């Protein structure tokens, strides 16, 4: 057994986290920053943080992930990191020449209380920031919230770039939340199809799913431009996908620039996608194009065709709140039973949403916000499941408990495809369904006796 010391019996833990279902804010801020065109993320802290975040993102995307750091020394930690930050700005613009530097803090710089806006102002006045270039920043203390919070905070800082001019640009801001580059691409396709002009931010498509062509570009084509970010203040509205990832930025735009917003669930699965598409329809005042209606119909068709393999199958899920809410709703809509649900991010709101979504299920549901994978594993030991959905760390549980397992979430370090194939939207729903059915049917084929082995499933 790989996790041989995990007991079925659950004992209270007040101080010890084991096998976390989360990581810290800065990596979320770094990922979000990569969704700005020509942006170099900068980690204001000791160099280890930056190295760790770059490594994790690189392993997930199998793509170069550039980011710089203030490389705090002991001295800087005592006397403050302003000097390191200013030096960084100078070096970054002269060596890498990005359009913008997106700085996020760390537990280190937060603990000593560095004031980034003030440092940035100083850099600006001292002419360390070239004309037409920008430095934006977000406060992302590692000891508050999780990687999701950090993502949300940086996205909010992106919204803060908005410069409302009073002249509407007739575009809709769409904040996709922490999804894969392929998902952002797919969201743009759907929005285009429906005929809505939009500003999507952040947008990592084209940045973290790039081609191999013999040239390396630190700043690829992709990403939301600063120009676009500035004009988000002139948009007619904002669709924020995911309360945890995207709502703060949207509400801030509402408050500061009077850009009204709706906060929707992330469009994973049939119903959440329906709500997203319907919202776009109402915004644009159009009828849904055949092609999208058709994609929807295909998803419903496949659900009906394969229902017998999904019906009342028990699932355990671990991941981030916005994703889990949509996925749980999707599984319930398939007549499946998500019985164990863990996110590392705290929040009673999450547990409440899950309880609502699962309230008609004929079985008990374990849900925990601010839980860890050790707990999830213990739940699974006492109430086994037919399916496990989560990031790559779940593979240890899946092997120990011999569970059909679908990799979904962050990080995925041991399989390919997630960068290239969306799981949002109806087509994404088809893909999720294909993956879920795949592992369930593989299990049927593996475990059926020879007399029950089937050609046709």
């Amino acid at each position, binding site marked *: 057994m*790989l*996790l*041989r*010391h995990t007991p079925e019996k659950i004992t209270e*833990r007040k*101080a*010890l*986290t*084991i*096998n*976390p279902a989360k*990581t*810290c804010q800065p990596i979320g801020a770094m990922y979000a920053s990569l969704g700005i065109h020509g942006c170099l993320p900068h980690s204001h*802290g*000791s*160099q280890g*943080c930056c*190295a*760790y*975040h*770059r*490594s994790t993102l*690189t*392993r997930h995307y*199998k*793509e*170069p*992930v*550039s*980011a*710089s*750091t203030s*490389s*705090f*020394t*002991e001295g800087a*930690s005592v006397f403050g990191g302003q000097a390191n930050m200013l*030096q*960084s700005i100078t*070096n*970054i613009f*002269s*060596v*890498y020449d990005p359009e913008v530097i997106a700085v996020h803090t*760390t*537990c*280190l710089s937060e*603990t*000593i209380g560095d004031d980034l806006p003030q440092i940035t102002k100083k850099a600006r006045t001292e002419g360390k920031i070239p004309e037409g270039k920008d430095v934006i920043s977000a406060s992302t*203390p*590692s*000891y508050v919230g*999780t990687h999701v919070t950090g993502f949300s905070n940086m996205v909010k800082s992106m919204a803060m770039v908005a410069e409302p001019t009073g002249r509407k640009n007739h575009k809709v801001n769409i904040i996709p939340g922490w999804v894969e580059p392929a998902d952002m691409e797919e969201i743009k396709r759907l929005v285009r199809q429906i005929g809505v002009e939009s500003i999507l931010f952040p947008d990592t498509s084209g940045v973290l799913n790039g081609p*191999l*062509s*013999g*040239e*390396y*570009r630190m700043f690829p084509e992709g990403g939301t431009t600063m120009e676009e970010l500035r004009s988000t203040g002139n948009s007619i509205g904002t669709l924020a996908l995911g309360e945890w990832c995207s709502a703060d930025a949207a509400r801030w735009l509402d408050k500061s620039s009077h850009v009204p917003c709706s906060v929707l669930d992330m469009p994973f699965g049939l119903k959440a996608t329906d709500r997203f598409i319907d919202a776009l329809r109402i915004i644009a005042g159009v009828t849904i194009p055949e092609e999208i209606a058709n994609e929807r119909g295909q998803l419903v068709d496949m659900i009906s065709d394969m229902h017998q393999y999904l019906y009342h199958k028990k699932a355990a899920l671990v991941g981030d709140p916005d994703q889990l809410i949509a996925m749980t709703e999707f599984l319930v809509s398939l007549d499946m039973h998500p019985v164990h649900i863990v996110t590392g991010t705290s929040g009673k709101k999450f547990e409440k949403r899950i309880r609502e979504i699962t309230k008609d299920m004929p079985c008990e549901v374990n849900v925990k916000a601010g839980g860890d994978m050790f707990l999830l594993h213990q739940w699974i030991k006492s109430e086994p499941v037919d399916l496990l959905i989560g990031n790559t*760390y779940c593979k240890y549980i899946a092997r120990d408990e011999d569970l059909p397992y679908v990799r979904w979430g962050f990080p995925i370090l041991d399989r390919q495809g997630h960068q290239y194939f969306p799981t949002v939207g109806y087509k994404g729903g088809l893909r999720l369904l294909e993956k879920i059915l795949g592992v369930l049917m593989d299990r049927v084929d593996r475990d059926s006796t020879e007399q029950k082995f089937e050609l046709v499933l």
Partner: protein
Amino acid sequence: MATATNKKLVQWDPAEVKEELLKKYPPKVARKRAKQILINEALENETPEISANIRTIPGIISMRGCTYAGCKGVIMGPTRDIVNLVHGPIGCSFYAWLTRRNQTDPGPDGENYMTYCFSTDMQDQDIIFGGEKKLARAIQEAYDLFHPKSIAVFATCPVGLIGDDIHTVTKKMKEKLGNCNVYAFSCEGYKGVSQSAGHHIANNQVFRHIVGENDEVKPGKFKINLLGEYNIGGDGFEIDRILQKCGITCISTFSGNSTYDQFASAHTADLNTVMCHRSINYVADMLETKYGIPWIKVNFIGAEATAKSLRKIAEYFGDKQLSRKVEEVIAEEMPAVEAVSKDVRTRTGGKTAMMFVGGSRAHHYQELFNEMGMKTISAGYEFAHRDDYEGRHVIPNLKVDADSRNIEEIEVEADETRYKPRKSEKQTKALEKAGYTFKDYDGLIPDMENGTLIIDDLNQYEAEKLVELMKPDIFCAGIKEKFSVQKLGVPMKQLHSYDSGGPYAGFKGAINFYKEIDRLVNSKVWGYMKAPWEENPQLSATYCWE
């Protein structure tokens, strides 16, 4: 291989390359980097000086990690039966969770916490009011759940700043728990200038809290410790296989596939062999001073180097049987190795490599490339010190700077009861007279050809430039560098984690490495980067059929 042949044609002058690398830097940065970029002119008995183990430049994208990474990730990570509890916000423990490929073999029912991630997950109130209580409770909870023989606590950045006294907490808990050794590491990420400081902090505490805890004498005629071997991709398993075959007993490995008890018994070995000089040479010194165990530098990367190291160990013990056995083993293992190297050399011969890793691999792996007929045209370390480049003779005149000052140097002296010189003055002299060298390491520079570029703490920008200018056939570094290099169409091999491969140590490892490099430099994929229409983009203005 079109790409390959192209490269052959490339001419480059090291001075021009160096100039290119520095051109874009602000003056201050350029001055600093100039001292870390060395055009090799090593002569017989004069090695040029390089600037190393100095601060990373803020804003310059370095390969380096932090002290915590060196301490928790590298040194303590591979010890399977210690509960490694990280005191700090969740991230630091998350990122060090199963992300290094040091393998471990706990057997069917041994203790193994390698697959677990333990953290106190500090929250803002802990930062404000202090985290000592939470730490103590976390230790208790870990103990109640697992009853491990030892719990190690690691400090992350904020811990030092808010002044949590982790050493007192662990001392108290050790007393409270009784049968569990608890201790802490002040390895905050901001300390030192690289992982190297973390290695030092880790090794100091291992020496202070564990080594010597178990005096029981283990069986075995020729007992050694293997220092600085971390069993990445199973290297340690292969080395163990060879040592066992030779009849040599490995009392402890620091710290690949290791256990608490191995450390505790380390002082009962009769020879310390040092693999990674950078991360552990000072432990070898301390073990000699306190217990009288001499140390020698070895290298099991490369078949020839492996043979050499085995002979060196045998020579130390001066036992005919052992020497004969060692020769037998070498004679038995080499043919398979040579068969493969002969075969791959037809495809790899004359190709070029670059290597920028660690504190010793950038040196060790040149052995393997040489055996494949490949030339290392540029190399450097990520976190090494001058002695790793220039040799130990520079150690006395290394100056202690602001960053290294606070990295503790333990003062040790001979143990009253347990100090026992393994060789008499006379024996040692005799060996040395016969050309045997103890505690000796000449560093990377002398082993590299003139005109090659030796670069300390290479950064992303310089790496890209180097590849563009010198077009190596393969580039070796870490995961962060892998894909930017490959985007340029040059295969990249991770020499920290070996990607998904290994072992590369010893004889079988050499074979694995030959094949892996052969695969990489001869992969068809590098020929696909240009689409056919890029090769011949001519267009008929109208539909071709008309």
